[in-house]
């Protein structure tokens, strides 16, 4: 294959040279190291020795032309190669020309000027116009002029140093707009949303609907009420047995019986003796409620919803069970009556179904307490000096310490536990004055 003699990278920042003259012509025979021609770089004129012995096949850059590093200067047919080889080679090259690949160099590619530019600027440096300083006004004044459609150039400023003041613009814009300070037009407003933060990619979900209401409610509660939580365990072995016994009867009426209706009933009855836990704080007054509306938190696709069993003290367990089932159903099918979600005085939250034991529920403000029901589990407990296996239900009672003292809360809890353990769902004898 014929040898392509490329203009080498000689370093020193030289990228190009000018062919001063050729000492050979196409068809000439050359010996290795014999001079081919002269080339001028930034630095000097140098002779180019032939790298090969052979015949000059083609001179690519004529005398006077400029050659860049990596470009072929001359193609030499080496000894033993036929003229036919040379022809084929040149044809191939002609059809597929590719620029020399960039090989990287500290000095990079420095662009070469093609023509001579004039000297920049005027020789006689024109003194920057000391003419009129133009209109002087603060950005605020300019903004108002824009709003009022006032041409600042047409106003004579009355402020310091001829500055145009807000009053000047207002005077000039009188009649065009009623109010002096026209509100800046609402921008059509597009929001910049980044799909990432400093540490990686993120999704952004608009807080809305129930989730937004819950967020606001929870924040209001936690920043308003002084909340703390007492934790108790109730032995519900007998209650469980009762529920197991009643279950088939309820099922006949299409009711799925859980422990919840019993708990609601027991809570309502216990609250009748502990009004502070069925209360709210209004200014300097504690409002003690004489109705017992027990909210039961329901987890739905849209978020947390709390339908309320109204007047739980006057309902039997079965009615409560029916109420809860219906309202929970309505919540899931998004048909719940708004009135069913209002008027609660005490809330029960059940995380037992998802495996939680004790937790610290947040009060459904402005109520004064909330009961968290955990997961019932069989545990070894000591009864009459013997270890027995009993069904234990963890209860977490959060209360507003502004209204309820710790001991009051504990007494309420003990009453509730007594009722759950003794299966006592009768209302206490309380003198109601209404």
């Amino acid at each position, binding site marked *: 294959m014929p040898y392509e003699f490329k203009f080498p990278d000689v370093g020193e920042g030289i990228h190009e040279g000018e062919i001063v003259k050729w000492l050979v012509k196409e068809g000439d025979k050359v010996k290795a190291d014999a001079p081919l021609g002269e080339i001028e770089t930034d*630095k000097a004129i140098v002779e180019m020795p032939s790298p090969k012995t052979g015949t000059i096949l083609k001179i690519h850059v004529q005398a006077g032309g400029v050659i860049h590093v990596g470009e072929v200067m001359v193609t030499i047919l080496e000894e033993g190669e036929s003229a036919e080889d040379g022809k084929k080679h040149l044809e191939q090259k002609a059809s597929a020309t590719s620029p020399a690949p960039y090989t990287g*160099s500290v000095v*990079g590619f420095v662009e070469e*000027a093609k023509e001579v530019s004039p000297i920049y*600027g005027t020789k006689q440096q024109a003194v920057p116009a000391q003419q009129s300083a133009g209109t002087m006004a603060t950005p605020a004044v300019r903004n108002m002029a824009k709003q009022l459609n006032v041409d600042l150039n047409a106003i004579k400023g009355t402020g310091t140093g001829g500055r145009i003041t807000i009053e000047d613009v207002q005077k000039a814009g009188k009649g065009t707009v009623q109010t002096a300070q026209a509100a800046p037009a609402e921008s059509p407003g597009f929001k910049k949303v980044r799909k990432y933060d400093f540490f990686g990619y993120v999704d952004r979900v608009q807080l809305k609907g129930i989730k937004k209401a819950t967020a606001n409610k929870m924040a209001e509660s936690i920043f308003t009420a002084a909340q703390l939580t007492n934790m108790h365990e109730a032995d519900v072995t007998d209650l469980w047995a009762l529920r197991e016994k009643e279950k088939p009867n309820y099922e006949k009426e299409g009711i799925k019986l859980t422990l919840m209706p019993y708990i609601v009933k027991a809570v309502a009855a216990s609250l009748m003796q502990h009004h502070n836990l069925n209360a709210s704080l209004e200014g300097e007054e504690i409002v003690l409620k004489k109705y017992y509306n027990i909210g039961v938190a329901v987890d739905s696709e849209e978020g947390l919803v709390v339908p309320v069993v109204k007047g739980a003290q006057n309902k039997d367990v079965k009615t409560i069970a029916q109420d809860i089932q219906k309202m929970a159903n309505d919540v899931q099918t998004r048909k719940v009556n708004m009135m069913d979600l209002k008027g609660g005085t005490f809330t029960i939250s059940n995380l037992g179904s998802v495996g939680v034991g004790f937790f610290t529920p947040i009060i459904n403000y402005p109520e004064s307490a909330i009961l968290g029901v955990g997961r019932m589990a069989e545990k070894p407990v000591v009864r009459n000096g013997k270890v027995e296996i009993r069904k234990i239900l963890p209860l977490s009672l959060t209360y507003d310490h502004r209204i309820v003292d710790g001991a009051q809360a504990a007494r309420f809890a003990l009453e509730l536990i007594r009722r759950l353990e003794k299966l006592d769902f009768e209302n206490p004898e309380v003198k109601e004055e209404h």
Partner: protein
Amino acid sequence: MAVANVVQAVTMALRQELARDKNVVVMGEDVGVNGGVFRATDGLQKEFGPNRVIDTPLAELGIVGAAIGMAVNGLRPVAEIQFSGFMYGPFDQLLSHAARIRGRSRGRFTCPLVVRTPYGTGIKALELHCESGESLFAHVPGLKMVVPSNPYDAKGLLAAAIRDPDPVIFYEPMRIYRAIKQDIPEEEYFVPLGKANVIQQGDQITLIAWGAMVKTCQEAIEKLNGKYSIELIDLRTINPYDAETVLNSVKKTGRCVIAHEAQRTCGFAAELIASINEKVLLSLQAPVVRVTGPDVSVPFAKLEGYYLPDVSRIIKGIEKVMSF
């Protein structure tokens, strides 16, 4: 008169000053026998001998440190640092010593030193060869920071820098080393330090740039083809910059765009805008817009086009200010 590009203009200035004053000394890596990585000192050692044009070891800290000692003792060294990316080693020498000699000696000594160094991107050079650190040096009191944008200024500014009694950082824009040729006087002339050049007068908007970015701004103005009356200012000296020319121009036009290659945050445009706000706020008709490199290290060759502000970005900046 002689046609010269920026490198040749630098050589002319060096030759002129070497011939004029025997105290002038050129020093740096490969500046002597080799003639410099960009040929800026080509032929000077042959002409003035190895005591005047000195090849140094590959040690930037040593080059500048030695030059400071020479300057304090009465010579006028012109040190070459091959690329501005290697200026951060000797930065300590410049900041802690060169810039402080005058104050440290209560004015009895000065440090008449010039450090020449090529800077800037746009030529597909390697990492650390492409930075624009002018505002780093401009931040140091006692250092002068000069950036020519064409051969005429390169020769005149370098001659002025060599005769200046204080240390001058002379930033040479690689991208236009050979890209601009001018017919410049062979005899002695100066372009004074601290004076900006109003390349083109206009009364609607002030466009400020320096170094290689001036050429890009000229191309942008050409492309806008008379759409706006643009006043183009070449700052020429970054520190101390010509506040009078800048502020008078902005006062006149009320609008301003500043273009620089350096990264945006704390780039020199920030300083200019602060001064404009302090002095001529009442004349501003629109916020001043910066067209700059982004806040990243200058990327490798393939991506440098995304980094370097180009004609379209400058036009975009001008349109933004004009349509405010």
